[in-house]
Every structure is written in C-alpha cells, then in structure tokens.
C-alpha cells in the first residue's frame, strides 16, 4: 500500500512538473512573453524593464527556476486589471464556482441516474431510445447555446427567471441547468452501461431465482453496486465542471473562476489567464491522485496489482 501511494504521488508530481513545463514552454515559444506581461500599448522602455524585472534576458533554465520558485510560494503573479495578486482573485471567485458546480452536479445526477436505470431496465424499449436521444442531444448541444435559449424562453418571453448575475437561488437555476445538461447525458450513459453489467451478474440472477420482485432486485441489489463507477465519474466531473464553466459563467454573468478567465482574456490580463489554467490543471491532477488512493483503500486488488 505504501509503495502504491508513493508511486502514485510520484506520478502526480511528474504530471505537475510536465504541466508547468508545458505552460512555461508555450508562453515562451509563441513569442516574447514580455508583450503578454506588459499592458497593451506599452513603450519599448517598459518592455525592456519587464525583461529585466522578470529575468527574461537570462537563460531559459534560470527563467524556469524563477517561475517554479514563485509558483512554490503560491505566487501566480499580479493582475494588471485588478492590481491584486492573481491567487487572491482566484480564491475569491472559487466559492462561487464550487457552488454552481455543486448544484449543477446534483441536477445532473438527479436526471442522469434515474434515466440511466430506466434505460437499462428497458433495453431496446422506448425509454432506452429516449435516453439515447437525450444523451446524443446532451453531447451535441453547446452549453452556451442552451444557456442563451434558456434566457430567451425563461427571462425574455416568460419573465420567470433573472437572466444574469448571482445572489438568489433563482439566479442559479438556469446556469446550473445549462452546465449540468452535458454531464447529465454522460452520467446517464454510464449508469446505463454499469447497470447492464450488474444486471447480468451472478448475484443478481440469484436474487431473481429466489423470486424477488423486479423492483427489489433493481433497487436493492443492482443499483447499489452500479452506482460506484457513476459516483467516481461524478467526483472527477465535479472538478472538470468547475473548470469548464467558462462559457456558462459568461452567458449568465456568474462571478466564478470561468468568468475570471474570460475577463483575463478580454482585458489581455495574461497573469490571470495563466494562473487560472495552471490551477485548473493542478486541481485535476491532485483530485485524480486522491481518487486513485481512495480506490486502493477500498479495493485491495488495485494496490496488489502494481
């Protein structure tokens, strides 16, 4: 177990290292990073000053060292637009994103799991086809378009819901739905296939042979085990949701980290963009590590395998 954890942590550190190299490398290979680090319209002298200040005239390896040293201190640089450290901005927006993602996730599970079960119980039937259509639509509709149509219907025509901003629970309904829609489809698909697998297993057959009614077999025996992979995926998806909510947050003017990223792009505030992206990668790598370890704790086969 110890060895397994050490190996996983090693991989995780390696991933984080590669992530930082990737981001560092791309910024430098695509042009002079000084043009990204100064405000638009800066003079030659300003650019030269930036070169000095950030050591951009030094060798690449030294530059990388400086970059990593400031990262290790949790320093993501200073935002041009807000004149505050990026880390501070990020942390102030994060709760909003987590809140939105949590609600969207709940919604997607509430839609995805029951419809997945229904589809698996009635393979090839109406509900299965309806589920497939729903999945396909979920994966084919861009979330920002879903958002725009929701605004059009519920804010403009019906006037039931506020079109943008945050504050009341009413503000949350449309963004959560627009964000959760895609994930609901993904959860439904996984619930369906996972249920099908469990329903074909020996112990479910035994439960049936004992003469248990269908509803009990599904609710008590199959459902519990089929849920494990779905919840794992949901865990990973929650982190992904926090980080891909950009468009939904832009459409609904939701003050989360996605909106921060968008502001970073529109104000050409490069430290913000780089910071949000780095944090997104780091968050996902770390969550993957935690899930790996959690799996090993639950299932001894995994840790013995490696």
């Amino acid at each position: 177990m110890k060895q397994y954890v050490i190996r996983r942590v090693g991989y995780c550190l390696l991933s984080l290292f590669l992530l930082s190299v990737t981001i560092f490398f791309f910024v430098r290979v695509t042009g002079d990073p000084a043009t990204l680090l100064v405000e638009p319209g800066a003079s030659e002298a300003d650019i030269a000053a930036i070169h000095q200040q950030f050591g951009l005239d030094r060798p690449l390896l030294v530059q990388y060292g400086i970059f990593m040293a400031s990262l290790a201190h949790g320093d993501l640089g200073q935002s041009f637009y807000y004149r505050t450290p990026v880390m501070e901005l990020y942390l102030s927006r994060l709760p909003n994103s987590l809140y939105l993602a949590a609600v969207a996730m709940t919604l997607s599970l509430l839609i995805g799991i029951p419809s997945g079960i229904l589809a698996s119980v009635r393979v090839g039937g109406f509900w299965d086809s309806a589920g497939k259509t729903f999945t396909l639509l979920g994966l084919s509709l861009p979330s920002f378009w879903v958002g725009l149509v929701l605004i059009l219907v519920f804010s403009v025509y019906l006037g039931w819901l506020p079109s943008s901003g945050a504050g009341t629970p009413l503000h949350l309904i449309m963004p959560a739905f627009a964000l959760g829609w895609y994930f609901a489809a993904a959860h439904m698909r996984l619930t369906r296939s996972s249920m099908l697998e469990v329903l074909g297993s020996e112990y479910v057959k035994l439960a049936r042979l004992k003469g248990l009614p269908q509803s009990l077999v599904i609710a008590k025996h199959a459902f519990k085990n089929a849920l494990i992979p779905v919840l794992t995926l949901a865990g990973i998806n929650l982190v992904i949701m926090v980080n891909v909510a950009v468009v939904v947050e832009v459409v609904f003017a939701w003050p989360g980290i996605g909106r921060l990223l968008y502001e970073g792009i529109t104000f050409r505030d490069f430290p913000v963009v780089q910071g949000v992206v780095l944090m997104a990668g780091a968050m996902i790598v770390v969550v993957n590590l935690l899930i790996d370890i959690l799996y090993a704790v639950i299932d001894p086969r995994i840790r013995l395998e490696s």
Partner: protein
Amino acid sequence: MAIQTEVIALPPRAPSRLASFRLGDFPLIPALILVIVALVAIFANLLAPHNPEIGSLTARFRPPVWQTGGSTKYLLGTDQLGRDVLSRLIFGARVSMVVGFTAVIFAGAVGTTLGIISGYLGGWVDQVIMRLTDTWLALPALTFAIFLAAIVGPSMWNIVIILGLTYWTRYARVIRGEVLSLKEREFVRLAIVAGCSKWTIMWRHILPNIINSAIVLGTLMLGVVIITEATLSFLGIGVPPPEAAWGLMLSDGKQSLMVGRWWLSVLPGCCIMLMVLSANLLGDWLRVKLDPQLRQL
C-alpha cells in the same frame, strides 16, 4: 448476458421506431445533412444572397421574413450591422467545415504518429510520450485551448493548430493501446524475422491496421472540435470578426437577446447543433461498422 436476462424477466417488446432508426443500417439523414453543409460551404459564394461581411446600416435588426417587419430581401433577418443572417450562416458553414476537418486531420496525424511510435518502440520513448499525453489529458480541453488561444491571438489557422494540439492526446491514447496488442501478432513477428526495419513495420504493417480506429475517432472528434471552435469564437479568441463564424454570430446575438431578437442567437446555434449531431450519429454508426472492438468503449 444482460439482454438475455431481460428477455426472461420481461415480455419481449418490439423495438420502438426511434430505436430502429438509430440502430438501423446507414444513418441517411445525418450523412445527407453533412453533405449538404459541405456543399453549402463549397458553393458559399454562389449561394449567399448578400456579402456576409458588409451590411447596410439602414437595415439593422430586420426580423426573419415570416415575422412582421421582415422582408424577402433578408430571408432570415439582419444583425446589428445590417448584415444578412442567411449569408453569414452560409459562410459560417465554410468556417466550421474547414476548421473542423483540418483540425481533426491535424490532431489525428500527430496523435496517430505518436501513438504508433509510443506503442511500438516502448521503453523510455513510450514513457515520455504517455506521461505527456496524461498530463495534457488532465487539463480540460477547453481550458487548454483557451490558454493557447490567449497566447497566440485569434486567427482561423491558429485555431486549427490550437485544436490539433489540444486533441491529439485522444488519438495517441487509443492508438497506442491497439498497437500494443498488434505488435504481439504473428505478422509483425514475421516482418521482424524477415528483416524489416522498425519504421517499415510501423508504416507498412501497423498503420494500415489501426487506420480504421483513427477514422472512427476522427468522426467522433469532428463534433467536439466544431463545438470547441464555436466556443472559442464565442469567447472572442477564436475566428476573428468580421469573419462569419457561427460561434461569433452567437456572441453578437447575445447582446440583443434581451430585447427578443431571437434569430441572431437561435439560428447559428441550430446550425451548430445539426452539424454536430450529424457528425456524432455518423461516427457512432462508423464505429460499429468499421471496428467491432471499439464497440466496448
């Protein structure tokens, strides 16, 4: 197994019409839609009634022809600069098609090459490529694409490169897995015994055997790539204005959504949806048809 159990437990039911349509043989409608979009993209110059980038400011915000105030001159209305929406949609098909296909091919070429090299050579090459793939896969594709787009600035060809760099990892993963099992097969061993060089084996013996999977992946990727392009354009870091891209039209349309000018955002969205839906349906069909192994995925 599962299906058999079902048959025992429940009375068999006839598959619904929807199911037979989805599971039936060739997905005719999706293929037709894609062909039509492709033709529209090719002949955009001939089909578009107006110039998509130049509008007349006296004809701003005209509604579509069937609404009061609409005229037959602008069948689907005009936008905030008086540009004809129909013409812009037609030229937008060109952008989506060009970006979608080139990005998928670019990502496919990079990913397949690295996947084959990684799987066949193994060792430290494999380790390096796979670690890189894992790391890049860890970043949400959208976040990574936004990051790249923010550094290199907006242009159509930059978008193609960005999408290629973002999505090659998907191919590399799957292709490597296939190569790992292929390289243990007898024909590869025979080729080794016959004295073929590593590169010949990869090019002549491995590649033809994995190309089906690459094509299936590519079709499934087309929809994803088109949505990402639209998203980047929507955020203002994709195809730059005044080019007529669907994502860009949506972003313009957002401004006047609150006053009920629905045609500016609903119509481009419908185009994206139709195209992505068709690509996905076709991809699903191809997957089952070309590569039974992938059905499990």
